[in-house]
């Protein structure tokens, strides 16, 4: 009984992965592959943020700093060392997790509003360090010169198709890992903290420790998203760590639904698709996006998946 949900998820994941990987064999479309690569990075980024926002009730305004840090750590490791790609990626994620641990250690004890502001301040601090440390990061021009191409397991990530397959696999595995974390007893503890932190404390849970773990894990997965982003743009740009990027992740989470695990993924897909479609027809992307957001916020009052579950509650199985 206990293993069945995990098995069911594994099967669903496998099917989803096979479908995504099979699409280019049937219909080869660079635009679609491009979309999936960006979606992979964004989905990991947004879903990791939702571990904080939806699961734990910690509203972070600065999640983009870990996305940006992951991208810079990975791109710099690739450029400055001879490490293989997986090792560089693991190192980048470790660096990001460590940064999240340090920032989290300072932030997690603050209450909601102040937590939001201090994460924003840390993000802006890291952003200004990236901008001003020109010799290492290339300043506001971003880290250029491309990433050295290193083959892994027969994949050559300079090729778009291979990057597509790699990103899809990484994103799906990452999401599966996040799913397991959020369904685990630890994930339940986080939801308990969200719903009533006093009671959770009375039950013997050390609140700051659980929150710090959540913050670190979320940072690490945002870093993984950043690695994919760095692979996609072949470098790293300060915009990855900037405020609007954190905003994008928050929108993805809110548009998709904070109470559904796949909500942020759906939200990220909506945002990216909207961006691709609208910019083709008009330069006033912000106007359209703003109206769509208003419709969601004032009309549905919740994200898409949350709304669907609200409108058609699933009967007991």
């Amino acid at each position, binding site marked *: 009984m206990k293993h069945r949900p995990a098995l069911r998820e594994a099967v669903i994941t496998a099917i989803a992965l096979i479908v995504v990987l099979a699409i280019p064999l049937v219909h080869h479309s660079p635009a679609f592959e491009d979309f999936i690569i960006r979606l992979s990075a964004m989905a990991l980024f947004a879903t990791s943020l939702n571990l904080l*926002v939806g699961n734990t009730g910690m509203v972070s305004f600065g999640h983009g700093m870990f996305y940006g840090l992951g991208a810079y750590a990975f791109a710099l490791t690739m450029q400055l060392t001879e490490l293989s790609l997986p090792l560089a990626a693991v190192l980048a994620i470790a660096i990001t997790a460590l940064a999240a641990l340090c920032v989290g250690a300072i932030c997690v004890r603050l209450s909601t509003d102040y937590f939001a502001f201090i994460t924003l*301040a840390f993000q802006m601090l890291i952003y200004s360090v990236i901008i001003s440390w020109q010799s290492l990061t290339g300043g506001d021009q971003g880290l250029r010169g491309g990433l050295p191409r290193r083959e892994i397991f027969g994949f050559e990530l300079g090729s778009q198709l291979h990057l597509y397959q790699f990103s899809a696999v990484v994103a799906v595995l990452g999401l599966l890992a996040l799913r397991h974390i959020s369904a685990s007893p630890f994930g339940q503890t986080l939801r308990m903290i969200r719903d009533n932190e006093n009671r959770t404390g009375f039950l013997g849970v050390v609140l700051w420790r659980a929150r710090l773990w959540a913050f670190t894990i979320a940072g690490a997965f945002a870093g993984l998203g950043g690695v994919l982003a760095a692979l996609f743009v072949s470098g790293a740009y300060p915009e990855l760590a900037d405020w609007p990027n954190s905003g994008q992740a928050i929108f993805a989470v809110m548009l998709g639904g904070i109470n559904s695990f796949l909500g942020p993924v759906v939200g990220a897909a909506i945002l990216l698709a909207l961006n691709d479609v609208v910019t083709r027809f008009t330069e*006033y992307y*912000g106007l359209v996006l703003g109206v769509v*957001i208003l419709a969601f916020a004032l009309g549905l*009052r919740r994200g898409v998946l949350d709304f669907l579950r609200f409108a058609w509650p699933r009967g007991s199985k």
Partner: protein
Amino acid sequence: MDLDALGACLTTSSCVVTQTTSGLIVGMLLFLVAAGVTLIFGVLKIVNFAHGTFYMLGGYVAYSTLGATDSYALAVLAATLAMALFGIVFERALISRVYGSNVLMQLLVCYAVVLIFDDVVKIVWGPEFHAMGMPPAFQVPPLFIAGGVVPPFYAVLIGIAALIAIVLGLGLSMTRFGKTVRAAAVNSQMVSALGVNTTLLFAIVFAMGGGLAGLAGALAAPVRSLSPGMGFSVLIESFIVTVIGGMGSIVGALVSALVIGMVRGFGTIGFPKFTDGLIYIVMIAILLLRPQGLFGRSS
């Protein structure tokens, strides 16, 4: 880092005067915007993420009014009134629907407004930068104070902002309306139960906040360039000001806006690339040591 340059500047009176006035300009404009943010947060418990948009629109309205009437005073007045009105509409039509819902929903609504009006500005005034230029009345020789050059407009700007600070401070502490506002900040339900029309009060507070931001935009237009998205950096800075000064405190907003203005004014000489970083470090330190801010009351 260029501490030698900073030291050299601090020992010459002309440099001190010039940097102090530019710091005061930054600080005073920031205060006008942040006073609205802190007022709205204090009374309505809403973090108005769209406040930079009021500032931007204020600047553009002043730009167009000056172009049409050639009177800067009229331009300032038009910007202030238009943004006060816009504040009421914004509060009634959008913000009043998300009272009491979580902070992310409020963020979403405000940011949607930011996105929409950045593009509206692009449609109406074009995406390029506009320079309003110094209004004709102020195209006079600069003042010389202790060897430093101070354009008369700077003195007027600082004077107007200081006057607003005094009026706002005294108004909130002395008048009946100010007392009602402060009472509503403590417990708006109780104020409502005592017979005050809080719906009206909230709208007025939003109008005041919007008007102040519009005024700041109009005053900033001659000294800064206008562009869509100009509200954004002001928004971030006014948040820093409110956090450092204490959410809901007008005095705190004034003091911390001036501190940030001075850090800006002299930081550009000492550490040109890391001025922003310096300000964020101050903000983090304040949040850790005194989360309620310098002048905030601990809850």
